[in-house]
């Protein structure tokens, strides 16, 4: 049987639907727990609703980026697997590499050669086996790391806030740096024109994002414009994307 027919068959859709639904169930369980806890801890309903609304707005952009990444997986390993892999333990880069490693172990190059049923099986198994390491370690260690963090901070609330704030800043610094540094070291690597220009464009987008956000935040704070605070992230991202394309 044709591998792509198997990959896009009804049984595969059902088999991949179960893990996807499972991820949703987990999210709902945690959300319900957090909402109830929030109420008991004195957080206002409006506060929690604002938080959820802001998360909806923030997720849409990145979700579309993940979606466009998923479409390349749809072509190489079929709809159901691409859908499941990016809904569960997924990241676009990891999935295509893992799928490629799986098929190449039996001599099939993913995306170039025709996918055989055997190669498809290899891709599926490799993607799953290589991804569960994250979940196993995270599930095993979450409560232990919590204890370690509390021991290190000796219950000092200020210290915990500092740790968390520094960690947030550092994650975003690291993400920005990965884009900003690329044009610099690409020069040393003597990368080709294509790589150079895309690296420069990404760095530009990151830079513009920072500048526009800074301006909007200052304006919103000075003039006390509430709606601008809420929408500044969306406006910044759209403006930087459009400007980057034009420049």
């Amino acid at each position: 049987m044709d591998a792509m027919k198997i990959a896009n068959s009804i049984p595969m859709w059902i088999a991949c639907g179960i893990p996807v639904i499972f991820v949703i169930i987990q999210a709902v369980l945690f959300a319900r727990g957090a909402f109830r806890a929030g109420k008991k801890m004195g957080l206002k309903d409006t506060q929690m609703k604002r938080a959820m609304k802001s998360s909806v707005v923030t997720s849409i952009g990145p979700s579309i980026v993940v979606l466009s990444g998923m479409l390349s997986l749809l072509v190489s390993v079929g709809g159901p697997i691409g859908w499941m892999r990016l809904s569960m333990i997924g990241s676009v880069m990891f999935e295509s590499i893992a799928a490629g490693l799986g098929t190449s172990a039996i001599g099939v190059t993913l995306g170039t050669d025709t996918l055989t049923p055997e190669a498809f099986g290899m891709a599926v198994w490799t993607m799953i086996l290589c991804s569960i390491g994250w979940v196993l370690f995270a599930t095993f260690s979450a409560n232990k790391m919590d204890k370690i963090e509390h021991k290190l901070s000796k219950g000092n609330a200020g210290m915990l806030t500092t740790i968390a704030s520094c960690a947030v800043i550092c994650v975003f610094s690291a993400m920005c740096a990965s884009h900003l540094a690329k044009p610099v070291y690409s020069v040393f690597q003597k990368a080709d024109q294509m790589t150079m220009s895309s690296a420069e464009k990404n760095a530009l987008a990151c830079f513009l994002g920072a500048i526009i956000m800074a301006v909007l935040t200052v304006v919103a704070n000075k003039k006390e414009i509430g709606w601008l605070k809420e929408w500044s992230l969306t406006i910044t991202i759209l403006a930087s994307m459009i400007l980057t394309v034009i420049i």
Partner: protein
Amino acid sequence: MKDFYTEEYMPKVNKIGKFTGYVGVLVAFIPAVVLAVVFGILPKPAALLTAFISGASAFGVLWFVEPISYFPVVGSAGTYMAFLSGNISNMRIPCASMAQVAADVKPGTQEGSVIATLGMAVSIIINVSVLTVGAILGTSVLSMLPESVKGALNYLLPALFGALLVQFGMKMKKHSIFMVIIAIILYILIGMGVFNWLPGASNWLGTLGCVFISIAIGLATLKNTKVSA
């Protein structure tokens, strides 16, 4: 209030997290099992082992480094959720942080962790919904988009990270500027292959290095301010 959080909420979070995490790992195998049972496709163990070993050597360090690096940001409930659903740096962390801003709570506090959990859960539901619509409509969605929009999508994440860095960095200006400079230097060194002797360093060294440098500097300056005050 403190008793409720540590004695009721956290044990519940751990219970839900452990159960869904371990069951989730089993559930992830369902497509592979269906492939074997319904279609009779089962890879040869030797070939699979080869593929797994090359995968593990490429990603193995990340299995441990990422949960540790992101823990100070997302907390326990966040760790359980973020690693089962994936897309951590590009979606879960931005959403958790923005939710905290919207609710006006501080990261690292109990209220902050509850709000971050809400934000992440919502982002998972949105993320999966968008992907589900996309998977059903298939490749026709993207072929409808004009080239210029597709090109612009490439710049969404860099712009998002730049904007978020400013949003959160403004509260700790000196620290942020210092961290960005360190991070850029670190990434340039990684890109130039200075750390090639570490396996797969280009994937994990940047984030891990920055997390620990940032926390160390943050704590050091916190102590200084306390002493001076």
